[in-house]
């Protein structure tokens, strides 16, 4: 597959790796923000290939992982008590709310469906005029245009039975929160390529200025990641701190203006709670009042009590890059993918799950007794 297979070339990967090894002279701690990048790093075994000086830590960029328990409980309530058709992306269904996951609600009889696209949810609403269809619209900036489009389509079709339960988070405020944490020791970022495809790279200049850290917009294939790391290390070694774009084949400086227009039409920025991290100011999207009829939060007046997060789960520290998943005392013990304590063990983009499934660190663990 063109534009995919090329970036998986072992020869190219090897040369980038050599170049990284040649370039690096001292330890550096680099965070890849995006869960998709975490997934790719572990799936391709890159973490073990990098020179020991390079310490990759994994960021909060898994939208499924940072969706608050409370919002999942809301989705559960809509599915179980309000009898709506509750749809979302596959991984979202596995994340435990305070008592169960959407998948468990489905097992209990709720109408919960996996869709490839929010636009499919609009079709579903059109086909089921007697049922309320709610799309649990999880995502970072990348997914926001699609979720916003679904609202616009539903509006255009005059549907009264479609709404979204938005759980949208934004990357730059998260980077800021990570950097502001006292325990943080991050020296550079791989910025999330697909988020930048939408938003462009301008948002990162103020961050680079404020924290004086290199910021390289990076793609998802192994060669992309290695090139991104090389570019980052070069800056670090040179004592530089600038915004660079490794992923220029799809990321333009200005992002995607059409997409930004659609996002701004449907959503407005608000303060947002991140699971495991807490509230980050101006870090999420909510549906604008103009589209209130499509906001499941307003359409269904649901008051769900907040549930405290598990005390055993150190997801907050993992998501901020302060701890590695395998440094969590519960990792692979009380917390496993089939029985997750925290959200990062659920999504295969979650750092804990990625480690559990793919990372060699698992060798050090007692084997799963199956």
């Amino acid at each position: 597959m063109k534009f995919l297979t090329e970036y998986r070339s072992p020869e190219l990967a090897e040369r980038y790796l050599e170049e990284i090894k040649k370039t690096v002279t001292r330890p550096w701690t680099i965070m890849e923000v995006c869960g998709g990048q975490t997934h790719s790093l572990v799936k391709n075994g890159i973490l073990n290939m990098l020179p020991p000086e390079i310490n990759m830590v994994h960021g909060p960029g898994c939208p499924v992982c940072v969706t608050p328990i409370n919002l999942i409980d809301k989705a559960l309530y809509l599915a179980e008590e309000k009898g709506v058709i509750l749809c979302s992306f596959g991984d979202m269904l596995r994340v435990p709310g305070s008592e169960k996951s959407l998948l468990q609600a489905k097992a209990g009889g709720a109408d919960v469906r996996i869709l490839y696209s929010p636009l499919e949810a609009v079709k579903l609403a059109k086909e089921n005029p007697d049922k309320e269809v709610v799309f649990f619209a999880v995502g970072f900036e990348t997914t926001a245009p699609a979720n916003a489009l679904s609202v616009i389509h539903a509006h255009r079709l005059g549907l009264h039975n479609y709404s979204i339960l938005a759980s949208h988070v934004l990357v730059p405020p998260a980077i800021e929160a990570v950097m502001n944490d006292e325990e943080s020791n991050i020296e550079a970022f791989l910025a999330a390529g697909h988020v930048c495809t939408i938003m462009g790279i301008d948002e990162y200049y103020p961050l680079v200025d404020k924290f004086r850290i290199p910021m390289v917009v990076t793609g998802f294939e192994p060669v992309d990641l290695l090139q991104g790391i090389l570019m980052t290390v070069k800056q670090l070694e040179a004592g530089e701190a600038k915004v660079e774009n490794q992923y220029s084949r799809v990321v333009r400086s200005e992002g995607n203006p059409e997409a930004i227009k659609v996002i701004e039409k449907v959503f407005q920025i608000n303060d947002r709670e991140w699971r495991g991290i807490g509230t980050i100011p101006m870090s999420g999207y909510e549906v604008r009042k103009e589209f209130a009829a499509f906001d499941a939060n307003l359409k269904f007046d649901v008051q769900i009590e907040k549930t405290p997060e598990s005390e055993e789960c150190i997801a907050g520290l993992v998501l901020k890059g302060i701890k590695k998943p395998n440094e969590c005392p519960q990792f692979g013990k009380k917390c496993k993918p089939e029985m997750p304590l925290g959200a990062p063990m659920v999504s295969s983009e979650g750092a804990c799950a990625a480690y559990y499934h793919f990372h060699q660190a698992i060798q050090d663990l007692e084997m799963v007794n199956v």
Partner: protein
Amino acid sequence: MCLAIPGKIKSIESQYDGLVRIAKVSFGGIIKEASLEMVPHAKVEDYVLVHVGVAISVVDEDEARKTFQYLKEMGEVEEELNISEMLPDDI
């Protein structure tokens, strides 16, 4: 986050009285529909990056080559890797 895959536009249709363009996009030969509302200039044969049914960017061939040229430009390797040329165009 945000799984997005490049695919090649095979054909374009319109919906909602021409308001919305929908493409058939091929990923290694498998075809899926994607909305072109976010990429108004995308045309047949273009490669678009598709995320949850929406094309969010047109892949720029020249920029794509840069990853293969980067090491050479840095003066670190002698010749540009010709991997990109080796690959067949997508079906």
